[in-house]
């Protein structure tokens, strides 16, 4: 193997400190799935075209397959596994269930993280805002109408 060897990387995952020992070319997605057992983020295209691996890095929706793990030193990572608190689902998660915003569910964690980021930045998004927020999250089952409905519904629930 060419280049420098594996290094220790420390970051925060879902509010808890975590550290992984990874080669420099491994991605955040590799680290989450293979080192930390967080398999919510999915590997679908592995080249930044589908968004199924979307997580939040310091609050920003990020394709974890396009982010090197070593570049996450000191950062705060949020994954779909960290959204529910004390068994209580996040309003976005609840809205996805209520509107049936999925079929096979494989892209769902990525879709949800993109919507969560949108709603933190924009309390009252329009359908157009939602479209922009999840434009980088493909869904092969075609659950898009439900996803848009879920985002708007969760925003309403948050405002109440």
């Amino acid at each position: 193997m060419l280049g420098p060897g594996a290094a220790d990387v420390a970051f925060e995952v879902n509010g808890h400190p975590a550290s992984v020992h990874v080669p420099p070319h491994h991605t955040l997605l590799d680290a989450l799935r293979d080192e930390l057992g967080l398999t919510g983020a999915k590997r679908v295209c592995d080249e930044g075209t589908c968004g199924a691996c979307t997580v939040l890095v310091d609050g920003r929706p990020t394709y974890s397959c396009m982010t090197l793990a070593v570049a996450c030193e000191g950062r705060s990572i949020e994954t779909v596994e960290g959204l529910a608190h004390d068994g209580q689902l996040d309003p976005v998660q609840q809205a996805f269930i209520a509107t049936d915003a999925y079929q096979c569910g494989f892209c769902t964690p990525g879709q949800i993280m993109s919507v969560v980021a949108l709603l933190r930045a924009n309390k009252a998004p329009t359908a157009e805002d939602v479209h922009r927020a999840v434009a980088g999250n493909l869904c092969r089952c075609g659950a898009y109408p439900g996803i848009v409905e879920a985002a708007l519904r969760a925003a309403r629930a948050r405002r109440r």
Partner: protein
Amino acid sequence: MKSDHARVVRTRVEFEGEITDELALIQGDDVEAWPEGAALEKVGRPTPRIDGASKVTGRARYTHDLRLPGMLHVRILRSPYARARVRRIDASQALALAGVRGVLHRFNAPKAAFRGEETIFRDEVRFVGDEVAAVAATSEEIAAQALRLITVDYEVLPHVVDLEEAMDDASPRIDEKGNVEEAAKHERGDVAGALREADVVVEATYRTSTQLHNSFETHGAVATWDGDLLTVHESTQHVFGVRQGLQAALRIPYGKIRVLCENMGGGFGSKGGVGKYTIIAALFARELGLPVRCVLDRGEENLAAGNRSATLQRVSVAVKGGRITALAHDSWSNAGQGRWVADPTGPTKGLYDVPNVRARSYKVMANTGSLSAFRAPGYVEGTFALEAAIDEAADRARIDPLELRRRHAAGEHDPMSGLRYSLKRLIDCYDIGAKEIGWSRRKPGGLRGSAPGTRRGLGMASQLWGGSGLPPAYAMVHLNPDGTAVARIGTQDIGTGTRTIIAQICAEELGIDVDAVRVEIGDTDSPYAPISAGSLTVSSIGPAVRLAARDAREQLLEIAAGIMEVPKTELRMQRGSIGARGALRSIAKVFEDLQNYTVIGRGARMPNPEDVSMKTFGAHFAEVEVDPRTGEVTVERVVAVHDIGRVIDPLTARSQVQGGVIQALGFALTEERHVDRATGRVLSTSLEIYKVPTVKDVPKIVVRFVDVPDTEANNIGAKGLGEPPIIPTAGAIANAVSNALGIRVRHLPLTPRRLLQLVAAAEAEGAGGRGAARPS
């Protein structure tokens, strides 16, 4: 209530457009279907998925997510040539790489039967992507590295990849019998005579492109042996099909194979059985004594995991006296290396009452990956061609295209079998859809668009499909003494909400909450259930689940009658309680003294009735805006109306229809596999190049159901919905574009480039775009 003896019956079944008589083993007796208007409390109510929380929290475990201790990873070496003989393989350098545990190829792999061949590594590889060797290593990365260290001596052979090239006699013959083989034919009436005497004859050639499934979870399996017991986790539409494939490949008894699929990330027809990756994982796992994971990457998924065949179709429509008097349809499909082919002429034969029909369909072999079923295989392609031709005939005969279809859509008998339809509400679909889209606004030649220079059009197309389900399918329902239940059945949820449907039906029969039912599926150690394909899951397993729940209920009431000292006939079960004449007692209370008593109900899917034809019908209406200067087509609205019998869960049903429309939108406008003719390489192997619809491409989709139960079909009155909603959309969109521009659309996907070519050709003809534009 039950005669428990098992018996074998003959039953007529339909799968992916093919009707066959099969034998089925059944037990017990059926019950009457819930009648129309029955007061049901769970069935027919919008019910969020019972497994929703697992999907939104990331807890839902897919095959991709499995990490077993000591697990090895496989990468597959695939042929870089479209056709070549594998003369020699040297894997010594790969084996020497640290972390590599094994290499399999045609010179060392044990025989393993796969789809009629004796081995999984061919001596003559027949498409770019054909399996040549496989490496198992401690990481995927090492396995991938090892692939580059394998040297293969290929003798390159002549190839052909393109459908129309493969049909040409001058092209390389890749099969001894030639590349073209007749797959289906049908003739009724006097087609030649009707064409001769017609007022209007449309004869046109249509082309559709190869569509790739691109399931988000790629094909894959994890295999592990515990002594002589093989356990395989696989992303599949048919756990029992995988078991059967493994039994055939490895020659081990069914009792020594267990196949599991807890969740799966899409299949759309491509995950119907065992894959070479499954067998490779099982062989390595047996040899190396460790769990082995073999999962395809995105590129492989688009090379070697199936596709919807490209087609070339010729359709003729004769109109006389305002009616269609004849249809002729010849179709050629590129099966690649597939051993079967779908039939695009199905809708032509069965959708409309037309006395004179001739249909022939051909399978064409080429040096590309096998086709596999892709959501309504054949019918998506064929409906586009048929409905585009009928639209053109209507325009030429100056009849409203919906009106022309109405004249042939009311028949109560199946023109293929002559049998009476158990239920057909196609005219209702037309009425509902026409009203919803505002069909009366449609004008020949289209409407002005919203911006200068743009045009607007309306189009529609009809849908015919099966979906009546079939035996065998069995279910078991365990009722716990606290009134909760567990339903166990060997089906799988491919994303349609199968678990929820099962829970609703159980809850309905048992008078308990949907939440009180746990559903265990995706395991071959459960009672058999058929493949989740052909729109047959609900109509196959639903009736068995109902009987199993009912069996449990009857047993429970029997026991309760004894405990409560009330005649059973006076007892009712509702809302988790058992009672008689107003006095209700909770199930838990009734069984207080019988602590661990488990009631076990069993149910089997009964045979289909012999004397009726059971079909699903529908119609889609599309409104589009087209910019003839840029070639851009914007689908603004699709109204999708379906007649599928009783709708069990309107919430998940709506999702299926939206999903079908959206997948069809890709087929109609953007999705196309590109293969380099010179090398046979697939160029569109990523989601960057292969364009599936995004959220921004999605029109407003209005979903409507006729929602009348088919009480003759089965005891729940439901038929399938998986495939119907992808069938008519492309035809409706193509017809809407034709309406907008007065140009006939005959080649999908209708990319901006193709549309601009059509516009240019129409302008060159100088007829203002009306009439017959050449296909690109």
